[in-house]
Protein backbone atom coordinates (compact mmCIF):
# COMPACT_ATOMS: atom_id res chain seq x y z
CA UNK A 1 0.00 0.00 0.00
CA UNK A 2 2.72 2.36 1.01
CA UNK A 3 4.64 1.60 -2.12
CA UNK A 4 1.67 2.32 -4.34
CA UNK A 5 0.87 5.60 -2.68
CA UNK A 6 4.51 6.60 -2.82
CA UNK A 7 4.61 5.94 -6.49
CA UNK A 8 1.48 7.94 -6.97
CA UNK A 9 3.04 10.82 -5.13
CA UNK A 10 6.15 10.80 -7.22
CA UNK A 11 4.08 10.57 -10.36
CA UNK A 12 2.00 13.51 -9.34
CA UNK A 13 5.11 15.39 -8.49
CA UNK A 14 6.59 14.64 -11.84
CA UNK A 15 3.47 15.79 -13.54
CA UNK A 16 3.54 19.01 -11.63
CA UNK A 17 7.17 19.51 -12.49
CA UNK A 18 6.42 18.95 -16.11
CA UNK A 19 3.54 21.43 -16.16
CA UNK A 20 5.68 23.99 -14.40
CA UNK A 21 8.51 23.55 -16.81
CA UNK A 22 6.39 23.66 -19.94
CA UNK A 23 4.57 26.76 -18.78
CA UNK A 24 7.87 28.52 -18.31
CA UNK A 25 9.12 27.68 -21.79
CA UNK A 26 8.00 29.33 -24.95
CA UNK A 27 5.22 27.20 -26.38
CA UNK A 28 6.96 26.02 -29.51
CA UNK A 29 10.17 25.20 -27.73
CA UNK A 30 8.40 22.66 -25.54
CA UNK A 31 7.02 20.81 -28.52
CA UNK A 32 8.96 17.76 -29.52
CA UNK A 33 9.89 17.48 -33.18
CA UNK A 34 7.54 15.65 -35.48
CA UNK A 35 8.67 12.71 -37.51
CA UNK A 36 10.87 11.33 -34.78
CA UNK A 37 9.45 7.97 -33.89
CA UNK A 38 8.26 8.44 -30.34
CA UNK A 39 6.24 5.28 -30.05
CA UNK A 40 7.32 3.51 -26.92
CA UNK A 41 8.77 0.09 -27.56
CA UNK A 42 6.36 -2.59 -26.41
CA UNK A 43 6.06 -6.35 -26.39
CA UNK A 44 2.53 -6.63 -27.75
CA UNK A 45 2.44 -9.71 -29.95
CA UNK A 46 1.47 -8.10 -33.21
CA UNK A 47 2.72 -8.82 -36.71
CA UNK A 48 4.25 -5.41 -37.14
CA UNK A 49 6.05 -5.74 -33.83
CA UNK A 50 7.29 -9.20 -34.66
CA UNK A 51 8.53 -7.93 -37.97
CA UNK A 52 10.26 -5.00 -36.33
CA UNK A 53 12.07 -7.25 -33.89
CA UNK A 54 13.00 -10.26 -36.00
CA UNK A 55 13.14 -8.70 -39.48
CA UNK A 56 12.27 -12.02 -41.04
CA UNK A 57 9.39 -13.14 -43.17
CA UNK A 58 7.20 -15.77 -41.60
CA UNK A 59 4.15 -16.14 -43.83
CA UNK A 60 3.25 -17.73 -47.14
CA UNK A 61 -0.01 -16.21 -48.29
CA UNK A 62 -1.37 -12.71 -48.12
CA UNK A 63 -5.14 -12.35 -48.51
CA UNK A 64 -7.77 -9.67 -48.31
CA UNK A 65 -10.63 -10.73 -46.08
CA UNK A 66 -13.77 -8.74 -46.70
CA UNK A 67 -16.58 -8.44 -44.23
CA UNK A 68 -19.42 -5.94 -44.35
CA UNK A 69 -17.85 -2.63 -45.25
CA UNK A 70 -14.23 -3.37 -44.58
CA UNK A 71 -11.24 -5.20 -46.00
CA UNK A 72 -8.65 -6.73 -43.70
CA UNK A 73 -5.18 -7.69 -44.84
CA UNK A 74 -4.28 -11.13 -43.49
CA UNK A 75 -1.14 -13.22 -43.48
CA UNK A 76 -1.95 -16.93 -43.68
CA UNK A 77 -5.49 -15.97 -42.66
CA UNK A 78 -4.41 -14.17 -39.51
CA UNK A 79 -5.14 -10.46 -39.72
CA UNK A 80 -2.17 -8.11 -39.61
CA UNK A 81 -2.25 -5.92 -36.55
CA UNK A 82 -0.90 -2.43 -36.08
CA UNK A 83 1.67 -1.56 -33.46
CA UNK A 84 -1.09 -0.80 -30.94
CA UNK A 85 -2.76 -4.12 -31.65
CA UNK A 86 -5.67 -3.15 -33.92
CA UNK A 87 -6.35 -5.10 -37.09
CA UNK A 88 -5.13 -3.55 -40.30
CA UNK A 89 -8.59 -2.89 -41.69
CA UNK A 90 -9.45 -0.54 -44.51
CA UNK A 91 -12.99 0.58 -45.44
CA UNK A 92 -14.36 -0.71 -48.76
CA UNK A 93 -14.32 2.83 -50.09
CA UNK A 94 -10.53 2.55 -50.12
CA UNK A 95 -10.37 -0.72 -52.00
CA UNK A 96 -7.42 0.29 -54.15
CA UNK A 97 -5.46 1.05 -51.00
CA UNK A 98 -6.25 -2.43 -49.68
CA UNK A 99 -5.02 -3.98 -52.90
CA UNK A 100 -1.81 -1.98 -52.70
CA UNK A 101 -1.35 -3.03 -49.08
CA UNK A 102 -1.72 -6.63 -50.07
CA UNK A 103 0.79 -6.11 -52.85
CA UNK A 104 3.20 -4.49 -50.43
CA UNK A 105 3.16 -7.50 -48.12
CA UNK A 106 3.29 -10.10 -50.87
CA UNK A 107 6.13 -8.52 -52.79
CA UNK A 108 8.59 -8.50 -49.90
CA UNK A 109 11.64 -10.61 -50.45
CA UNK A 110 12.03 -12.88 -47.45
CA UNK A 111 15.67 -12.13 -46.77
CA UNK A 112 15.30 -9.23 -44.43
CA UNK A 113 12.71 -6.53 -44.04
CA UNK A 114 13.69 -2.94 -43.49
CA UNK A 115 11.53 -0.21 -41.97
CA UNK A 116 11.36 1.52 -45.34
CA UNK A 117 9.86 -1.49 -47.10
CA UNK A 118 6.31 -0.90 -45.86
CA UNK A 119 5.45 2.79 -46.33
CA UNK A 120 1.72 2.26 -46.95
CA UNK A 121 1.35 -0.02 -43.96
CA UNK A 122 3.06 2.49 -41.74
CA UNK A 123 0.72 5.33 -42.77
CA UNK A 124 -2.40 3.19 -42.54
CA UNK A 125 -1.51 1.72 -39.18
CA UNK A 126 -0.89 5.22 -37.86
CA UNK A 127 -4.33 6.23 -39.18
CA UNK A 128 -5.93 3.31 -37.36
CA UNK A 129 -4.01 3.84 -34.14
CA UNK A 130 -4.67 7.57 -34.13
CA UNK A 131 -8.36 6.88 -34.68
CA UNK A 132 -8.51 4.51 -31.72
CA UNK A 133 -6.54 6.85 -29.50
CA UNK A 134 -8.82 9.78 -30.34
CA UNK A 135 -11.89 8.07 -28.93
CA UNK A 136 -13.02 9.68 -25.68
CA UNK A 137 -11.86 8.02 -22.52
CA UNK A 138 -8.73 6.58 -23.99
CA UNK A 139 -5.80 5.53 -21.84
CA UNK A 140 -3.29 8.42 -21.72
CA UNK A 141 -0.46 5.90 -21.95
CA UNK A 142 -1.66 4.90 -25.41
CA UNK A 143 -1.90 8.55 -26.41
CA UNK A 144 1.72 9.09 -25.46
CA UNK A 145 2.70 5.94 -27.34
CA UNK A 146 1.46 7.46 -30.57
CA UNK A 147 3.22 10.76 -29.91
CA UNK A 148 0.44 12.96 -28.59
CA UNK A 149 -3.17 13.73 -29.30
CA UNK A 150 -4.58 15.63 -32.21
CA UNK A 151 -4.21 19.07 -30.63
CA UNK A 152 -0.54 18.52 -29.89
CA UNK A 153 0.13 17.13 -33.36
CA UNK A 154 -1.70 20.08 -34.99
CA UNK A 155 0.44 22.58 -33.10
CA UNK A 156 3.59 20.80 -34.24
CA UNK A 157 2.33 20.82 -37.84
CA UNK A 158 1.55 24.53 -37.69
CA UNK A 159 5.23 25.28 -37.20
CA UNK A 160 5.83 24.07 -40.74
CA UNK A 161 3.61 26.84 -42.08
CA UNK A 162 5.97 29.46 -40.67
CA UNK A 163 8.96 28.29 -42.67
CA UNK A 164 7.12 26.59 -45.48
CA UNK A 165 9.25 25.49 -48.44
CA UNK A 166 6.83 27.26 -50.76
CA UNK A 167 7.05 30.52 -48.82
CA UNK A 168 10.84 30.89 -48.96
CA UNK A 169 12.21 32.69 -52.00
CA UNK A 170 15.88 32.68 -52.89
CA UNK A 171 17.78 35.84 -53.89
CA UNK A 172 17.79 37.11 -57.49
CA UNK A 173 21.56 36.84 -57.62
CA UNK A 174 21.62 33.07 -57.28
CA UNK A 175 21.77 30.94 -60.43
CA UNK A 176 21.54 34.11 -62.58
CA UNK A 177 17.99 34.59 -61.33
CA UNK A 178 16.70 31.41 -62.95
CA UNK A 179 15.79 29.77 -59.66
CA UNK A 180 13.98 32.87 -58.47
CA UNK A 181 11.99 33.23 -61.64
CA UNK A 182 11.04 29.56 -61.50
CA UNK A 183 9.98 30.02 -57.89
CA UNK A 184 7.91 33.07 -58.81
CA UNK A 185 6.27 31.20 -61.62
CA UNK A 186 5.46 28.12 -59.55
CA UNK A 187 4.91 29.36 -56.03
CA UNK A 188 3.09 32.68 -56.46
CA UNK A 189 -0.12 31.25 -58.01
CA UNK A 190 -0.14 28.51 -55.38
CA UNK A 191 0.34 31.00 -52.55
CA UNK A 192 -2.53 33.20 -53.68
CA UNK A 193 -4.77 30.16 -54.14
CA UNK A 194 -3.90 28.95 -50.65
CA UNK A 195 -4.53 32.43 -49.23
CA UNK A 196 -8.00 32.37 -50.73
CA UNK A 197 -8.52 28.82 -49.51
CA UNK A 198 -7.52 29.58 -45.92
CA UNK A 199 -9.56 32.81 -45.91
CA UNK A 200 -12.67 30.66 -45.86
CA UNK A 201 -11.70 29.64 -42.36
CA UNK A 202 -11.29 33.22 -41.24
CA UNK A 203 -13.46 36.32 -41.02
CA UNK A 204 -11.42 38.37 -43.48
CA UNK A 205 -8.92 37.90 -46.30
CA UNK A 206 -5.58 36.49 -45.19
CA UNK A 207 -2.03 37.10 -46.29
CA UNK A 208 0.72 34.56 -45.88
CA UNK A 209 4.04 36.00 -44.78
CA UNK A 210 6.71 35.02 -47.29
CA UNK A 211 10.44 35.01 -46.66
CA UNK A 212 12.19 36.81 -49.48
CA UNK A 213 15.95 36.43 -49.20
CA UNK A 214 16.49 39.76 -51.00
CA UNK A 215 14.27 41.71 -48.61
CA UNK A 216 14.54 39.83 -45.36
CA UNK A 217 17.98 38.29 -45.61
CA UNK A 218 18.72 35.39 -43.37
CA UNK A 219 16.12 35.17 -40.66
CA UNK A 220 13.21 33.10 -39.49
CA UNK A 221 9.65 33.51 -40.61
CA UNK A 222 6.40 33.55 -38.69
CA UNK A 223 2.76 33.70 -39.73
CA UNK A 224 0.26 36.06 -38.19
CA UNK A 225 -2.10 34.80 -35.50
CA UNK A 226 -5.08 35.02 -37.91
CA UNK A 227 -3.38 32.75 -40.42
CA UNK A 228 -2.45 30.28 -37.69
CA UNK A 229 -6.01 30.29 -36.41
CA UNK A 230 -7.42 29.66 -39.90
CA UNK A 231 -4.93 26.87 -40.49
CA UNK A 232 -5.83 25.37 -37.13
CA UNK A 233 -9.52 25.48 -38.06
CA UNK A 234 -8.73 23.82 -41.38
CA UNK A 235 -6.82 21.03 -39.62
CA UNK A 236 -9.78 20.48 -37.33
CA UNK A 237 -12.09 19.91 -40.29
CA UNK A 238 -10.00 16.97 -41.51
CA UNK A 239 -10.98 13.45 -40.60
CA UNK A 240 -8.28 11.41 -38.90
CA UNK A 241 -7.20 9.54 -42.01
CA UNK A 242 -6.75 12.78 -43.92
CA UNK A 243 -5.01 14.24 -40.89
CA UNK A 244 -2.45 11.43 -40.85
CA UNK A 245 -1.90 11.78 -44.59
CA UNK A 246 -1.48 15.51 -44.04
CA UNK A 247 1.13 14.86 -41.36
CA UNK A 248 3.03 12.44 -43.57
CA UNK A 249 3.06 14.89 -46.48
CA UNK A 250 4.21 17.78 -44.30
CA UNK A 251 7.06 15.70 -42.94
CA UNK A 252 8.11 14.60 -46.41
CA UNK A 253 7.90 17.93 -48.19
CA UNK A 254 8.57 20.20 -45.20
CA UNK A 255 5.63 22.17 -46.43
CA UNK A 256 2.15 22.79 -45.01
CA UNK A 257 0.99 24.11 -48.37
CA UNK A 258 2.05 20.99 -50.26
CA UNK A 259 -0.05 18.91 -47.89
CA UNK A 260 -3.11 21.08 -48.56
CA UNK A 261 -2.48 20.74 -52.30
CA UNK A 262 -2.20 16.96 -52.02
CA UNK A 263 -5.35 16.50 -49.98
CA UNK A 264 -7.34 18.86 -52.18
CA UNK A 265 -6.23 17.15 -55.36
CA UNK A 266 -7.47 13.84 -53.90
CA UNK A 267 -10.65 15.24 -52.36
CA UNK A 268 -14.03 14.38 -53.85
CA UNK A 269 -15.03 17.99 -54.34
CA UNK A 270 -12.21 20.39 -53.96
CA UNK A 271 -12.79 24.01 -53.04
CA UNK A 272 -9.29 24.91 -54.11
CA UNK A 273 -9.45 25.75 -57.80
CA UNK A 274 -6.00 24.41 -58.49
CA UNK A 275 -5.07 20.86 -59.18
CA UNK A 276 -1.52 19.59 -59.12
CA UNK A 277 -0.27 16.13 -59.92
CA UNK A 278 1.92 14.36 -57.37
CA UNK A 279 4.94 14.89 -59.61
CA UNK A 280 4.27 18.65 -59.64
CA UNK A 281 3.93 18.70 -55.87
CA UNK A 282 7.21 16.82 -55.52
CA UNK A 283 8.81 19.29 -57.90
CA UNK A 284 7.53 22.25 -55.89
CA UNK A 285 8.95 20.78 -52.71
CA UNK A 286 12.38 20.10 -54.22
CA UNK A 287 12.74 22.99 -56.66
CA UNK A 288 15.89 24.35 -55.07
CA UNK A 289 17.56 20.94 -55.07
CA UNK A 290 16.78 20.60 -58.76
CA UNK A 291 18.70 23.81 -59.48
CA UNK A 292 21.53 22.85 -57.14
CA UNK A 293 22.07 19.46 -58.77
CA UNK A 294 21.80 21.11 -62.17
CA UNK A 295 24.67 23.41 -61.31
CA UNK A 296 26.85 21.26 -59.11
CA UNK A 297 25.94 17.73 -60.10
CA UNK A 298 24.27 14.96 -58.21
CA UNK A 299 25.94 13.53 -55.13
CA UNK A 300 25.67 9.77 -55.15
CA UNK A 301 23.77 8.11 -52.34
CA UNK A 302 22.13 11.45 -51.53
CA UNK A 303 20.30 13.24 -54.29
CA UNK A 304 19.25 10.17 -56.21
CA UNK A 305 17.97 8.42 -53.08
CA UNK A 306 16.21 11.53 -51.80
CA UNK A 307 14.47 12.09 -55.11
CA UNK A 308 12.86 8.65 -54.96
CA UNK A 309 12.19 8.96 -51.27
CA UNK A 310 10.18 12.15 -51.66
CA UNK A 311 8.20 10.75 -54.57
CA UNK A 312 7.45 7.39 -53.00
CA UNK A 313 6.25 9.08 -49.82
CA UNK A 314 4.09 11.63 -51.64
CA UNK A 315 2.54 8.95 -53.80
CA UNK A 316 1.99 6.70 -50.79
CA UNK A 317 0.23 9.57 -49.02
CA UNK A 318 -1.91 10.11 -52.13
CA UNK A 319 -2.86 6.45 -52.22
CA UNK A 320 -4.01 6.55 -48.60
CA UNK A 321 -5.86 9.84 -49.15
CA UNK A 322 -7.84 8.56 -52.12
CA UNK A 323 -11.37 7.52 -51.30
CA UNK A 324 -14.36 6.70 -53.44
Amino acid at each position, binding site marked *: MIKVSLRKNTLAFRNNGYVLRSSLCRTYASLSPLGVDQTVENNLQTETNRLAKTFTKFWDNVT*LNSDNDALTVALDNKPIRTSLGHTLTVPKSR*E*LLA*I*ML*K*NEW*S*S*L*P*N*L*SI*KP*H*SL*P*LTSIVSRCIDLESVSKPGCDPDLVSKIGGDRVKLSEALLRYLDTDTLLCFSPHAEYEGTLRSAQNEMYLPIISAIERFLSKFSSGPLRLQVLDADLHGLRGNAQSEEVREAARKYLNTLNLWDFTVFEKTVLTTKSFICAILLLES*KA*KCSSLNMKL*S*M*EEIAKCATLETIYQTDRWGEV*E*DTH*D*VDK*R*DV*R*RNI*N*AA*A*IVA*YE*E
Partner: protein
Amino acid sequence: MSSRSEALSSYKALIKALVRSSRRARIAQAAEDNKRQITLLTYKKINAVRQQAQEKDAKSKIKLIPQIGALTKKIESLKNQDPAKFKKFLFYGNVSQLREALLRDAQPETLIKRMEHIRDLAGFVQNQLEYEQLVERYNPGLNMSQNENVKRTAARVGLHVPEN
Protein backbone atom coordinates in the same frame (compact mmCIF):
# COMPACT_ATOMS: atom_id res chain seq x y z
CA MET B 1 -10.52 10.49 -75.77
CA SER B 2 -7.13 11.78 -74.72
CA SER B 3 -7.92 11.10 -71.08
CA ARG B 4 -8.73 7.54 -72.04
CA SER B 5 -5.39 6.93 -73.72
CA GLU B 6 -3.70 8.63 -70.81
CA ALA B 7 -5.45 6.27 -68.39
CA LEU B 8 -4.43 3.32 -70.52
CA SER B 9 -0.80 4.37 -70.58
CA SER B 10 -0.71 4.89 -66.82
CA TYR B 11 -2.38 1.50 -66.36
CA LYS B 12 0.36 -0.05 -68.47
CA ALA B 13 2.98 1.74 -66.41
CA LEU B 14 1.35 0.44 -63.24
CA ILE B 15 1.34 -3.18 -64.41
CA LYS B 16 4.91 -2.87 -65.62
CA ALA B 17 6.01 -1.47 -62.26
CA LEU B 18 4.10 -4.15 -60.37
CA VAL B 19 5.67 -6.91 -62.45
CA ARG B 20 9.12 -5.47 -61.93
CA SER B 21 8.82 -5.04 -58.18
CA SER B 22 7.09 -8.36 -57.55
CA ARG B 23 9.47 -10.22 -59.83
CA ARG B 24 12.42 -9.19 -57.76
CA ALA B 25 10.75 -10.41 -54.58
CA ARG B 26 9.51 -13.62 -56.14
CA ILE B 27 12.96 -14.49 -57.46
CA ALA B 28 14.45 -13.99 -54.00
CA GLN B 29 11.68 -16.09 -52.46
CA ALA B 30 12.11 -18.85 -55.05
CA ALA B 31 15.88 -18.93 -54.49
CA GLU B 32 15.33 -19.26 -50.76
CA ASP B 33 12.77 -22.01 -51.31
CA ASN B 34 15.18 -23.77 -53.61
CA LYS B 35 17.89 -23.70 -50.99
CA ARG B 36 15.58 -25.14 -48.39
CA GLN B 37 14.49 -27.92 -50.72
CA ILE B 38 18.07 -28.83 -51.51
CA THR B 39 18.97 -29.02 -47.83
CA LEU B 40 15.98 -31.24 -47.16
CA LEU B 41 16.74 -33.58 -50.05
CA THR B 42 20.42 -33.79 -49.12
CA TYR B 43 19.43 -34.78 -45.61
CA LYS B 44 17.12 -37.47 -46.98
CA LYS B 45 19.90 -38.76 -49.22
CA ILE B 46 22.39 -38.95 -46.36
CA ASN B 47 19.86 -40.93 -44.35
CA ALA B 48 19.28 -43.32 -47.24
CA VAL B 49 23.03 -43.88 -47.71
CA ARG B 50 23.43 -44.51 -44.01
CA GLN B 51 20.59 -47.00 -44.07
CA GLN B 52 22.17 -48.72 -47.02
CA ALA B 53 25.47 -49.08 -45.17
CA GLN B 54 23.71 -50.59 -42.18
CA GLU B 55 21.75 -53.16 -44.18
CA LYS B 56 23.41 -56.55 -44.20
CA ASP B 57 21.20 -58.14 -46.77
CA ALA B 58 22.41 -57.48 -50.34
CA LYS B 59 18.88 -57.51 -51.73
CA SER B 60 17.62 -54.69 -49.54
CA LYS B 61 20.86 -52.80 -50.27
CA ILE B 62 20.09 -52.92 -53.97
CA LYS B 63 16.53 -51.81 -53.27
CA LEU B 64 17.79 -48.51 -51.93
CA ILE B 65 19.95 -47.68 -54.96
CA PRO B 66 17.16 -46.29 -57.20
CA GLN B 67 15.89 -44.20 -54.29
CA ILE B 68 19.31 -42.61 -53.80
CA GLY B 69 19.67 -42.13 -57.54
CA ALA B 70 16.33 -40.31 -57.71
CA LEU B 71 17.30 -38.06 -54.85
CA THR B 72 20.64 -37.20 -56.46
CA LYS B 73 18.89 -36.38 -59.71
CA LYS B 74 16.40 -34.15 -57.99
CA ILE B 75 19.12 -32.29 -56.10
CA GLU B 76 21.07 -31.78 -59.33
CA SER B 77 18.04 -30.43 -61.17
CA LEU B 78 17.24 -28.07 -58.31
CA LYS B 79 20.83 -26.85 -58.26
CA ASN B 80 20.69 -26.13 -61.98
CA GLN B 81 17.46 -24.20 -61.68
CA ASP B 82 17.71 -20.46 -62.09
CA PRO B 83 14.66 -18.65 -60.66
CA ALA B 84 15.66 -15.50 -62.54
CA LYS B 85 14.72 -17.29 -65.75
CA PHE B 86 11.25 -18.39 -64.68
CA LYS B 87 8.71 -17.24 -67.24
CA LYS B 88 5.87 -17.10 -64.72
CA PHE B 89 7.61 -14.24 -62.93
CA LEU B 90 7.12 -12.07 -66.01
CA PHE B 91 3.42 -11.82 -65.18
CA TYR B 92 1.74 -10.15 -62.28
CA GLY B 93 -0.33 -12.69 -60.40
CA ASN B 94 -2.97 -10.40 -59.06
CA VAL B 95 -4.24 -8.55 -62.10
CA SER B 96 -7.85 -9.71 -61.93
CA GLN B 97 -8.48 -8.20 -58.50
CA LEU B 98 -6.84 -4.94 -59.48
CA ARG B 99 -8.70 -4.71 -62.76
CA GLU B 100 -12.00 -5.48 -61.09
CA ALA B 101 -11.46 -2.64 -58.62
CA LEU B 102 -10.44 -0.25 -61.39
CA LEU B 103 -13.35 -1.09 -63.66
CA ARG B 104 -16.09 -1.12 -61.03
CA ASP B 105 -19.11 0.96 -61.96
CA ALA B 106 -19.35 4.40 -60.43
CA GLN B 107 -20.36 7.97 -61.08
CA PRO B 108 -18.63 9.55 -64.09
CA GLU B 109 -16.73 12.00 -61.83
CA THR B 110 -15.49 9.14 -59.67
CA LEU B 111 -14.36 7.27 -62.75
CA ILE B 112 -12.37 10.25 -63.97
CA LYS B 113 -10.76 10.60 -60.55
CA ARG B 114 -9.97 6.90 -60.47
CA MET B 115 -8.34 6.98 -63.88
CA GLU B 116 -6.15 9.84 -62.72
CA HIS B 117 -5.36 7.93 -59.56
CA ILE B 118 -3.80 5.06 -61.53
CA ARG B 119 -0.85 7.31 -62.31
CA ASP B 120 -0.18 7.80 -58.60
CA LEU B 121 -0.38 4.07 -57.97
CA ALA B 122 2.18 3.51 -60.71
CA GLY B 123 4.35 6.33 -59.39
CA PHE B 124 4.37 4.80 -55.94
CA VAL B 125 5.29 1.27 -57.00
CA GLN B 126 7.99 2.51 -59.33
CA ASN B 127 9.61 4.93 -56.89
CA GLN B 128 9.43 2.44 -54.03
CA LEU B 129 11.23 -0.13 -56.16
CA GLU B 130 13.90 2.31 -57.31
CA TYR B 131 14.40 3.56 -53.78
CA GLU B 132 14.90 0.05 -52.44
CA GLN B 133 17.31 -0.80 -55.23
CA LEU B 134 19.36 2.32 -54.55
CA VAL B 135 19.47 1.72 -50.80
CA GLU B 136 20.63 -1.83 -51.46
CA ARG B 137 23.24 -0.69 -53.91
CA TYR B 138 24.73 1.85 -51.54
CA ASN B 139 24.53 -0.41 -48.50
CA PRO B 140 25.68 -3.79 -49.72
CA GLY B 141 25.90 -5.19 -46.20
CA LEU B 142 22.23 -4.56 -45.57
CA ASN B 143 20.94 -7.79 -47.00
CA MET B 144 23.91 -9.95 -46.13
CA SER B 145 23.23 -13.19 -44.32
CA GLN B 146 24.73 -13.76 -40.90
CA ASN B 147 27.14 -16.39 -42.27
CA GLU B 148 28.38 -14.07 -44.97
CA ASN B 149 28.80 -11.31 -42.44
CA VAL B 150 30.89 -13.50 -40.12
CA LYS B 151 33.00 -14.69 -43.03
CA ARG B 152 33.81 -11.17 -44.15
CA THR B 153 34.53 -9.96 -40.65
CA ALA B 154 36.98 -12.81 -40.21
CA ALA B 155 38.56 -12.14 -43.59
CA ARG B 156 39.19 -8.54 -42.57
CA VAL B 157 41.69 -9.71 -39.94
CA GLY B 158 43.15 -12.40 -42.18
CA LEU B 159 41.24 -15.38 -40.81
CA HIS B 160 39.14 -17.97 -42.55
CA VAL B 161 35.93 -19.40 -41.24
CA PRO B 162 36.17 -23.22 -41.35
CA GLU B 163 34.00 -24.89 -43.98
CA ASN B 164 30.88 -26.47 -42.48
